[in-house]
């Protein structure tokens, strides 16, 4: 047996496949094809959860993704998934499900005390209290947070992986019911590239639970034939278990395919070729939305007891899963659709009574059929009370008045174990609304339907308000033909026969948004609107009374529609009640915006493979492996990994850096400078162009010579610097900072293309084309001469700031004599593939000089000793060239980018922050970077400050600390005493020039 409530036959379950599972630790059995919900119902289990606020016992209400109640913590451990709807979990062997939000157990939940006190917790009560004593909110919040939330977050990293993939198509059809299949068939036959996405495990949509006929045969036969036809078309792709969750601009949709969820947790090593879920990012030329409709509950007193479910859901459990939801049913409806459930239940042996809000119920149409089948139909009757704590056991029905706001007769008690309600159907307009399409309220079905489309999209079938099968088939077919035609595909040949289905005239719905109870609303019995968040009709009325009369206010004040179901069953009912409270029509009250996703989407699927090592690309130089082997510590600079320092055994960072610095000053050091940006600039107007982008002049630079340049944004602030070399006539190589390289190239290209297209200049990034080893120090030239005997290294003919070509270690190289250390230094550029060879050659040949690799930290000390700025550390986007001490470098003979900004009023002020040196009175004291400079330290802040320390190091060269700082009016303060504020004291400092080592430049030029 797979449950006492399983019918002996029927349904689409696989009776040959018996599946064991547990719920809250108790073992049950289900069948292949079951959902967790259907399997539980087959075992007579309705109570599956507790509501958010009142902890009321709740049962399975729906048979789809709109489920507000039956939320499950699926699986323990690393595979756990919180808040999963039992109605969409496909049953698999050994599935382990647990209820949520209860303590100590689902059956006996202490939190239910909230229900008894519910009177004191109306909508928004927390805005009105918890304010005393002042600032005590954190205390109340602590208590409230203990009760918050539903499921639990996993405690270990996710063992599964996820994929993202792009797809393009002419026509995307969302929904695989009759309308969607008809649309896909029509578009596919016309030759369009079609993707059909359906969220269920089987195509067929509502037909999976129906007993209707198409072309005189069971509808599922038509579904089978249609699916077979679609599968044969090369231009059609069918995606099952795939939910279209987001509709973005320009017909871009997000689809979530659940690839292995239905198989349950996969043991490690098994199925690794398949991701758990796959995010499809689809660009469709046309979209057909055939997403069906979602049934509305009726809002009556205590309409939330386990056993109260939607009529359509009851029918789905019966017809699709072969499960009787109960033995005695009361059907409560305001429309004809619930009679299908009544008839099917009756046929399955369930005792059925129908309470129909409409006065003519039982007089014609399907309700007359029901009477004929022996079903009691109570016209103009409502359920006015329900009983049963963990399962409904009886209801009271009564006649209600024509206005629908009061009882018009005595009550009658009916024993029952299931209540099937239908308040009408809402077309699933979520995606249409997300696409920015406008909705319209259709009085005939009392629901919102798509109106004016904002993108290339059409709705068809129930999604468009056509609830009859014939209408679905007709609209789907037409939408498919139109969509294909709009993308240039016209059906050829004779039109195939259109499927036919019978349509029966329906009696009109009686929208009654709030069903009166035995007591006034809010004074006994709760009329639930939003089941998950426990928002009631009384809450909606209270909100309206308190001025929260817009839909957005209502949602936020009452939390209606804010649960994990995003109001799929509650929004329109809330709107109806609000409209009545405002004494207006629903269209006047408006509708809420539907926001993506349609159903919740796993974080992991959205992140895809862009996690871990792939979160961001790692850039390494051709010499990277050498650095690793040498034990370098690395620093992230943008995406690059740069050696930070090379500690020897037993060495700390400071020791290593001091050693590296001294090695450069005393003999020779070697730095991997590959990461510096390199832009090759060529063309007859190249010098003119450089004149525009740098503050200084470039037209006099001769081939073979280099010049340092500062680049400003148009606001006059330094944004990059570097040395540019003239390699030949009309040919330059620009160096940029490591992290500025991409921005500088983009900046150059932008100006060339948009402002100066007449300049004949080409810019090419060659950063990765060249590997660069920088050797620096008094022995650098000797070392270079050994490896490059053909090079002319005479300081007279190859002085500082020049470049030449020639082989180094047999490798064709460009050698720049430039320096960021203050030592004579050579940047040897070779094709990247030779980078490691060059490096090894230098290291080997340099052994006799004790050549020392140095990292970025030693480089920073070396450059700070010389007072060279580091853009981004000593500047921060607010410094002009003058502020940084480059005032005299700025050309007065030309215009350049940023120049006009330098003459603005505030740029002239003498109290701007200017870059200066600081020397502490105590030479051993190294100032912390970021510390602020003050005239007078105060024990207690606030204290006025003048600026901050931008760079600060121990200088092993001069055996004392050094610092650079930006200080208000700093140039004028040179020689004066200031203080640097630490936490507990002010450190006395003297303002100095920025150059601490070799101010004459003897080392540099030597």
């Amino acid at each position, binding site marked *: 047996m797979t449950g006492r409530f399983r019918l002996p036959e029927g349904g689409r379950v696989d009776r040959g496949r018996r599946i064991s599972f547990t719920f809250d630790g108790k073992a049950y059995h289900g069948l292949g094809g079951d959902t967790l919900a259907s399997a539980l119902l087959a075992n007579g289990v309705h109570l599956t959860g507790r509501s958010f606020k009142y902890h009321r016992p709740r049962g399975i209400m729906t048979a789809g993704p709109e489920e507000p109640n039956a939320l499950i913590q699926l699986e323990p451990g690393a595979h756990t998934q*919180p*808040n999963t709807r039992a109605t969409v979990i496909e049953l698999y062997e050994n599935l382990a499900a647990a209820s949520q939000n209860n303590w100590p157990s689902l059956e006996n939940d202490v939190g239910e005390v909230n229900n008894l006190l519910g*009177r*004191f917790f109306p909508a928004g*009560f927390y*805005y009105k209290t*918890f*304010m005393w004593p*002042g600032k005590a*909110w*954190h205390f109340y*919040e602590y208590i409230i*947070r203990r009760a*918050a*939330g*539903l*499921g*639990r*977050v*996993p405690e270990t990293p*996710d063992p599964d992986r*996820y994929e*993202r993939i792009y797809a393009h198509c002419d026509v995307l059809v969302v929904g695989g019911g009759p309308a969607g299949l008809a649309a896909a068939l029509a578009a596919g036959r016309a030759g369009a590239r079609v993707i059909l996405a359906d969220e269920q495990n089987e195509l067929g949509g509502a037909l999976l639970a129906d007993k209707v006929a198409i072309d005189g045969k069971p509808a599922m036969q038509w579904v089978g034939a249609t699916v077979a036809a679609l599968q044969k078309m090369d231009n059609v792709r069918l995606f099952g278990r795939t939910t279209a969750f*987001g509709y973005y*601009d320009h017909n871009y949709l997000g689809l979530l395919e659940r690839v292995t969820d239905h198989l349950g947790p996969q043991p490690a090593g098994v199925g690794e070729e398949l991701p758990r879920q796959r995010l499809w990012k689809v660009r469709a030329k046309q979209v057909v939305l055939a997403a069906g409709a979602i049934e509305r509950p009726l809002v009556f007193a205590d309409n939330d007891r386990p056993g109260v479910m939607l009529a359509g859901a009851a029918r789905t459990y019966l017809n699709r899963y072969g499960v009787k939801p109960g033995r005695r049913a009361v059907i409560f409806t305001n429309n004809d659709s619930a009679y299908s459930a009544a008839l099917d239940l009756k046929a399955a042996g369930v005792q059925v009574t129908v309470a129909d809000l409409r006065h003519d119920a039982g007089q014609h149409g399907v309700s007359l059929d029901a009477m004929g089948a022996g079903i009691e139909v109570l016209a103009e009757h409502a359920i006015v009370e329900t009983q049963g704590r963990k399962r409904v056991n009886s209801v009271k029905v009564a006649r209600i008045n024509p206005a629908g706001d009061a009882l018009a007769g005595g009550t009658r008690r009916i024993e029952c174990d299931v209540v099937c309600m239908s308040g009408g159907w809402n077309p699933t307009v979520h995606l249409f609304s997300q696409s920015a399409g406008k909705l319209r309220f259709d009085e005939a079905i009392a629901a919102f339907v798509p109106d004016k489309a904002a993108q290339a999209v059409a709705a068809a079938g129930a999604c468009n308000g056509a609830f009859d099968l014939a209408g679905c088939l007709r609209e789907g077919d037409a939408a498919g033909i139109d969509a294909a035609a709009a993308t240039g595909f016209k059906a050829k040949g004779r039109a195939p026969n259109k499927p036919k289905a019978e349509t029966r005239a329906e009696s009109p719905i009686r929208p009654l948004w709030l069903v009166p109870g035995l007591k006034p609303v*809010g004074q006994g019995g709760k009329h639930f609107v939003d089941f998950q968040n426990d928002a009631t009709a009384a809450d909606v009325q*209270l909100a309206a009374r*308190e*001025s929260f*009369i*817009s839909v*957005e206010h209502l949602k*936020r*004040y009452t939390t209606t529609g804010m649960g994990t179901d995003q109001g799929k069953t509650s929004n329109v009912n809330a709107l109806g009640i609000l409209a009545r409270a405002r004494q207006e029509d629903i269209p006047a009250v408006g509708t809420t915006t539907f926001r993506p*996703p349609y159903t*919740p989407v*796993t974080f992991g699927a*959205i*992140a*895809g493979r862009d996690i*871990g090592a792939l*979160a961001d690309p790692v850039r390494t130089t051709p010499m990277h492996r050498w650095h690793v082997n040498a034990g370098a510590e690395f620093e*992230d*600079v943008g995406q690059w990994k740069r050696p930070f320092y090379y500690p020897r055994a037993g060495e700390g960072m400071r020791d290593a850096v001091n050693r590296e610095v001294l090695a450069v000053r005393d003999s020779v050091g070697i730095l991997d400078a590959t990461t510096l940006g390199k832009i090759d600039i060529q063309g007859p107007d190249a010098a003119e162009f450089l004149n525009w982008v740098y503050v200084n002049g470039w037209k006099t630079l001769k081939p073979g010579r280099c010049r340092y340049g500062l680049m400003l944004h148009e606001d006059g602030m330094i944004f990059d610097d570097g040395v540019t070399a003239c390699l030949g006539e009309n040919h330059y190589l620009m160096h940029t900072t490591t*992290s*500025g390289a991409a921005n500088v190239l983009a900046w150059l290209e932008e100006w060339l293309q948009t402002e100066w297209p007449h300049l004949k200049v080409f810019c090419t990034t060659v950063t990765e084309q060249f590997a660069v080893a920088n050797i620096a120090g008094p022995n650098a030239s000797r070392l270079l001469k050994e490896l490059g005997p053909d090079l002319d290294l005479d300081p007279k003919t190859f002085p500082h700031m020049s470049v030449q070509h020639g082989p180094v270690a047999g490798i064709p190289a460009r050698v720049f004599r430039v320096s960021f250390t203050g030592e004579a230094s050579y940047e040897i550029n070779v094709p990247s593939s030779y980078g490691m060879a060059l490096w090894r050659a230098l290291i080997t040949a340099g052994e006799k000089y004790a050549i020392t690799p140095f990292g970025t930290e030693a480089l*920073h000390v070396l450059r700070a000793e010389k007072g060279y700025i580091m*853009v*981004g550390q000593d500047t*921060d986007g*607010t410094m002009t060239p003058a502020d940084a001490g480059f005032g005299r470098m700025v050309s007065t003979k030309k215009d350049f980018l940023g120049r006009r*900004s330098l003459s*603005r*009023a505030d740029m002239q002020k003498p109290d701007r922050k200017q870059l200066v040196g600081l020397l502490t009175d105590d030479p051993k004291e190294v100032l912390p*970077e*970021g510390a602020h400079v003050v005239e007078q330290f105060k024990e207690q*802040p*606030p204290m*006025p*400050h003048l600026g901050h320390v931008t760079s600060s190091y121990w200088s092993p060269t001069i055996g004392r600390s050094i610092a650079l700082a930006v200080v208000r009016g700093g140039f004028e303060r040179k020689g004066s005493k200031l203080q640097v504020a630490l936490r507990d004291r002010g450190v006395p400092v003297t303002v100095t020039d920025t150059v601490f080592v070799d101010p004459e430049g003897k080392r540099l030029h030597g």
Partner: protein
Amino acid sequence: MKKYSVFSLVRNALDYHRNWQQAWRSPAPKSAYDVIVVGGGGHGLATAYYLAKECGITNVAVIEKGWLGGGNTGRNTTIIRANYLQDESTGIYAHALDLWDTLSTELNYNVMFSKRGVLHLAHNQHDLKELARRHNANRMMANELEFLTPEQVKAFVPIINISPDVRYPVLGGSLQRRAGVARHDAVAWGYARAADSLGVDIIQNCEVTGFRIEQGQMKGVETTRGFIASPKVGCVAAGHSSVLGAMAGLRLPIESHPLQALVSEPLKPFFDTVVMSNTVHVYVSQSDKGELVMGAGIDAYNGYSQRGSLPPIEHLLSAAMELYPVFSRVRVLRKWGGIVDICPDASPLITKTPVQGLYFNCGWGTGGFKATPGSGHVFAHTIARDDPHPLAAAFRLERFATGNLVDENLAAAVAH
């Protein structure tokens, strides 16, 4: 205004909540006001409240084209902090933080300001230097921040991954303990209710269609409900500021961009603070309902669609996974977009304009919500005195001509 308290709650419960007062009136616009505030979000309502409460100007209308609090006030990630870089910013944000502290009592409306701390992470040497500078800058202003080592970060946020082996490891963090989050809607509602009780008319569903300006002097606003006269008009319309500016012939240094945020399904609380990272670019908190609240970067293009694209969300979630691998199986429940108004220096405009009697308060970018009380407070004083409040003086429009920007872009990356 009838006072809210636990006693009023109990009393009303006994009446089945039938007798609660409306929180604010829905008056028809009068023909003239002393001050009109355009924009019924948090900042606009706060401005009106402080005009009435502190400046003695109660003949005030707040004109809102939609529903109050329906713009960025109700669309942000509710983070409140005051750990900016420049003194001028610290001035205004710390002032706001002081006002947040007592706001629930002040308004008799629980805005649920939760001082759970805001933690900024550092992932590289540049970040560490930047945090150090910010710490010191804020300390000079008596605004204390705390530095946390990676181990202290882990102790404070147990769920975080501080492994050195990730792409951008956590190297440290800067914690502002008195920062936190608040209930965003309640801020708008609380200010609206309190302002209304002081006589302010809140006029919803009334769109400004133009200004009447004569000889450079503001005369009033044209609206979808007719002309309303006022010698002073303060515009607090965030993303729509440029549209209003254009109506007055003004060009503003503002660009409006979509900014997206999302919440997860509600989970049992496990994340009791706010963590932000600029380098990995993600910020996370967990609401009192249990939802993870996360913000993405702006969409690059300017736009008024309140929608945004999928890629910023993809980047956001892959960034989140870097720090919180356990989030992988959590699900996005809802995402949405707002329109943020961004100034080139990432600081606001709180300013008089060339039109006498026309004032603008905008350009808050992604920092608007946290500034709400401070912004409204100084703007009310600026309007009332026709002279910038000292804390607003740095945020004048003129700064864009003189060059005295208040640069909060941490744009400059480390070089060499």
